[in-house]
Each structure stands twice: as structure tokens, then as C-alpha cells.
């Protein structure tokens, strides 16, 4: 009885051993074999170990995938997971572009393309194409034996055994994951295929999320740019409305102010002729009245310039000679300043309104002259930027400079840092208007105590 029992036990043990050894290789043509999780199943122990390992792996893979930063990182994480878990020779991830109907190499491990070759792009007449067409995994034991696959365009990483899995989220194909040749010889098992499929499924969800996130970011960026543009446009419109209103006011004020100013100037001139030259005090008084009237007229002229800076009379002009004319006109104001000219000769002519541009340069030279206390330098540069087809005029002084706070408001109408009666605050505003009308650019940079640089960019006439 005991012997019989022992015999039965040995036979049972042998059968278990046989069943472990007889694990059949999995081929795509064979129906999938699933191990039962029943303790009564002979392969229960092996299955349990496998599932625990797989579960642990997928859990860790999932953790890693969640923390992937960006599409490329997620793709790398998926490829790496498949490659390392199964100990594979080559693992390749291709992304699918539905618009061009082409695959692009996104990540590869254990396989490297010659860098001199153009980027890898694969059409849908390939094994990858077949996989996404069928929307199911393809497991091949030996490619050379699959004649129907050999008719397709060759993908050099697919050599012998491989698992190709479509990466699909809902109905959208995102790519294909190729796991090619195990390091240990032999074909892929069903379990290995199902791990690759799990990787692809989990990966697809993450890829889709990353894609959506990146699209959302892109959209947010587009919205931000659109908002900024709209805001800028609105600011411009507000500024234009403001300028228009100031312009109307300015021309009205100019007209009403100049009639009495004209009378004062004519009257003082008349009296000056009547008063004998010996009456110095009276003549001095008249001279003061005349100076004040002229100063008031200067303010009116600024207002007029402001209201009239709306249209240009353009002719091809030589910017260097305009600059030289302006420097000549303000040489008295620049007596205390050393003027350095860095002028490029033979510049092409620029289509400008000479009088208005002179107004700008004179204004900038006068500002520099006022900013330089004691002795200082004024550097005037004029040069061509051939590539951009522009002429640059730089006017740089070693004056007191402008604070950051004031720099922000420097082009605002009526903003001035000069003392009462010394500036209308319209000079730079008018200058900016004039340069804008020329479709040019005026920029100011400054450092308190070091000086100010104004850069005027003008397009070359064609």
C-alpha cells in the first residue's frame, strides 16, 4: 500500500516536471495560451511568479510614465521599458502621422542609424503599416519564413523574431512599437507578447495625455500671443484716439494763441523802433516780452507739429547730409559738447520727408545738448545694415541719462523731465509719430549717470 502510494506520488511529481519543461513557444499563428490562476493548475507556481513580476513591472513602468516630461520623454520611457524588461536586442518606436501617412523614428534602443542618412521615414506599405492597418499585434518567430511579410518594404531593425504592437488610443493610431530579437535565442512567448501589448496600451494613454497637454499648452500660448496682439492693437488705437484728440485741440489752441502772439510780436517790434537806444531799461523790458512771446510761439509750434504729424512728403534723401544740416543748425546749443561723427560714406538714399526728419534729429540733438551738463560727448553714427535693408542712425550722449521709470513714459505726449517752461513734452512724441509714419523705428536706451542712446531705424527706399 505504502509502495503504491509512493509510486503514485513520484508519477505525479514527474508529470509536474514535464509540464514545466514543455512550455511551448508562442507563434502569432497559434491561439494564445493563457495560464489559469487556479492552484489546481500544474503551472500555477510559474504563472503566479510571472504575473507578480509582470504586475510589479507594469506598476513601476506606470509610475515612471506618469512622471514623463513631454512627448519625447514618454516615448523613450515606453521604448526603454519594453527593451529592458524582456532583454531585447533592438527596440524601436515609430510615431504615426495621419496627415502624411508616414511613420517617423521617435526612439530606438540597441539599434542606431547612420547619421549621414536622412531622417527615417517609413510609408504605410511596410510591416509597421500592416500592424496599424490590422490594429493588432504581430508576433513573428522568423521573418525569413514569412513570405507575405517579405513583400513589404523592409525595415532594417526587423530581422528575425519580433513583436510589433500598434500604439492606439481609442481609435487614434499614435505609433508602432517594435520589439526585435531576444538576447537569449528563441522566439517570443505569448506572455512576452502580452507584456509588450500592456506596455503599448498604458503607453498609448500617456502619449495621448501628453499630446493633449502639449496641444493645450500650444493653444494657451497661441491665445496668449493673440491676447497680447489684441492688447497692443487696443493700446495703439487708444493712443491714436488720444493723439487725434490732442491734435484737434492743438490746432485749435495754436490758431487762437497765435493771433494775440502775432500782435505782441508786431507791437514790441514797433515799440523797439520808437524807443531811443539810450533807454536801455525800456529796451530790455521789450526784449524780455519779445523772448517770452517767441517762447510761447515755440510751444504753439510744438502743438502744431503734434497735430500735423500725419502725412509725409517723401523724396529720396541722403541721411548723412540731413544729419550734417541738423548738426549745423544746433551748433550753438552744442558748444559745450564734443561731437564725434562715425558716419559710413556712400549710403543709399532713403525715401523720407526731409523737413520732418530734420525735426526729429534736431529734437534729439537738442535733448542730448540739454542732458550734457558741463562737458560731454555726442556720438552720431550712421550706417547701413545691408541684410535688413535699413539705415541705422544712433545718437549717443554722455549726459545725465534717464531713469528706468521715466524711460517707460518717454514717448508719452506732454511728458517731460525738463523744468517748467523748458520743454513741452511733445518733442519725442512728435519724433516717434514721424518715425512711425516712415515705417521706421525709434528706440531709447539709457543709464542714469552714463548717458542715453537713441536708435532710429529707417528702411531703404526702393
Amino acid at each position: 500500500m505504502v509502495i503504491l502510494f509512493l509510486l503514485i506520488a513520484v508519477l505525479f511529481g514527474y508529470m509536474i516536471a514535464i509540464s514545466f519543461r514543455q512550455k511551448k513557444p508562442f507563434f502569432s499563428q497559434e491561439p494564445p495560451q493563457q495560464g489559469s490562476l487556479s492552484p489546481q493548475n500544474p503551472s500555477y507556481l510559474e504563472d503566479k511568479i510571472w504575473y507578480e513580476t509582470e504586475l510589479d513591472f507594469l506598476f513601476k513602468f506606470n509610475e515612471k510614465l506618469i512622471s514623463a516630461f513631454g512627448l519625447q520623454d514618454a516615448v523613450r520611457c515606453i521604448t526603454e521599458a519594453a527593451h529592458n524588461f524582456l532583454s531585447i536586442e533592438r527596440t524601436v518606436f515609430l510615431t504615426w502621422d495621419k496627415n502624411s501617412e508616414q511613420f517617423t523614428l521617435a526612439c530606438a534602443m540597441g539599434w542606431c542609424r547612420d547619421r549621414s542618412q536622412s531622417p527615417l521615414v517609413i510609408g504605410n506599405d511596410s510591416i509597421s503599416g500592416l500592424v496599424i492597418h490590422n490594429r493588432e499585434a504581430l508576433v513573428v518567430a522568423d521573418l525569413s519564413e514569412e513570405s507575405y511579410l517579405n513583400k513589404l518594404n523592409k525595415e532594417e531593425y526587423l530581422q528575425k523574431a519580433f513583436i510589433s504592437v500598434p500604439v492606439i488610443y481609442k481609435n487614434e493610431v499614435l505609433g508602432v512599437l517594435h520589439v526585435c530579437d531576444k538576447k537569449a535565442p528563441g522566439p517570443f512567448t505569448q506572455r512576452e507578447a502580452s507584456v509588450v501589448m500592456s506596455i503599448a496600451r498604458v503607453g498609448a494613454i500617456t502619449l495621448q495625455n501628453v499630446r493633449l497637454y502639449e496641444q493645450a499648452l500650444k493653444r494657451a500660448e497661441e491665445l496668449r500671443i493673440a491676447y497680447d496682439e489684441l492688447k497692443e492693437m487696443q493700446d495703439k488705437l487708444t493712443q491714436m484716439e488720444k493723439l487725434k484728440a490732442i491734435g484737434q485741440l492743438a490746432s485749435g489752441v495754436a490758431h487762437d494763441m497765435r493771433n494775440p502772439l502775432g500782435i505782441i510780436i508786431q507791437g514790441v517790434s514797433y515799440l523797439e523802433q520808437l524807443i531811443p537806444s539810450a533807454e536801455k531799461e525800456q529796451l530790455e523790458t521789450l526784449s524780455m516780452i519779445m523772448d517770452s512771446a517767441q517762447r510761447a510761439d515755440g510751444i504753439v509750434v510744438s502743438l502744431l507739429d503734434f497735430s500735423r504729424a500725419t502725412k509725409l512728403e517723401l523724396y529720396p534723401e541722403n541721411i548723412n547730409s540731413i544729419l550734417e544740416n541738423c548738426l549745423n543748425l544746433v551748433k550753438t546749443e552744442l558748444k559745450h559738447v564734443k561731437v564725434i561723427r562715425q558716419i559710413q560714406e556712400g549710403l543709399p538714399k532713403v525715401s523720407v520727408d526731409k523737413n520732418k526728419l530734420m525735426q526729429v534729429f534736431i529734437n534729439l540733438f537738442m535733448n542730448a545738448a540739454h542732458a550734457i551738463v558741463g562737458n560731454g560727448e555726442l556720438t552720431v553714427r550712421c550706417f547701413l545694415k545691408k541684410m535688413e535693408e535699413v539705415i541705422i542712425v544712433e545718437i549717443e550722449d554722455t549726459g545725465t541719462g534717464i531713469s528706468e521709470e521715466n524711460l517707460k513714459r518717454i514717448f508719452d505726449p506732454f511728458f517731460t523731465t525738463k523744468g517748467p517752461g523748458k520743454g513741452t513734452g511733445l518733442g519725442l512724441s512728435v519724433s516717434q509719430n514721424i518715425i512711425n509714419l516712415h515705417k521706421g523705428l525709434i528706440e531709447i536706451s539709457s543709464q542714469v549717470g552714463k548717458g542715453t542712446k537713441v536708435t532710429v531705424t529707417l528702411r531703404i527706399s526702393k
Partner: protein
Amino acid sequence: MGKKKILIIDDEDNFCNLVKKNVEKTNEFEVYVATNGNDGIKLIKVVKPDLILLDIMMPGLDGGDVVSLIRSDSSIKDIPIVFLTSLVRKNEAGAGFTKGYSLLAKTVTVGELIACIKKNVRG
């Protein structure tokens, strides 16, 4: 040789009178004054000035109307005109209906005014 005749047409009579005094002080010109466009046209026909100083913005006939009337009358159409206006910087070339004429700011100095008259006066 007699003095050249200048006619100033401007609705600011104080301005006109002071201009008259200053210009006549040179002893080269005789200045006539009209303080509106209608009087100006009448006076042009009577005086036949050698130059007209003409304001642009006036009630009634403004500078533009006066120019049209002058240019449509062959007996006076060749009289030189200098516009006096508040709406120019100092001394500018005209545009629009003032095209071809000199434009002077009302705040010019007497010296500039006389120089402009001498430059433009007929004969």
C-alpha cells in the same frame, strides 16, 4: 519811383494796424488794410496792390474764397499773394489752395515779414 502798395486782409484789426506801422516804417511800402474778405476784394480792385498779405481763417469770405475771386478776375489775377496764418511753423511752401504761394506764420518777426514781402512783391 513810388512806394509799392501792400494790402493786408485779416480779421484781427490790431494785428493789421501793427503790421502796417512796421512795414511802412521802411519807407518802401504803403500799406492798406481790410478786416474781412469782402472789403478786401473791393479794395484790391481800387488800390491794385503789388502784394496781398492774406489771412486764411476769417469769418465770411475766408482766404480760400478770396484767392478764387482774385484768380477769376483777369484784372487782378496776377497780384502776388502771401498767406499769413497761424497754422504754419514759420515760413513754409503752401499746399492745396495755397500751393504756389508763400505761407508765413503770424508770429514772424518784422524782419522776416519784410524780407518775405520784398521777395514776393510785384515789379
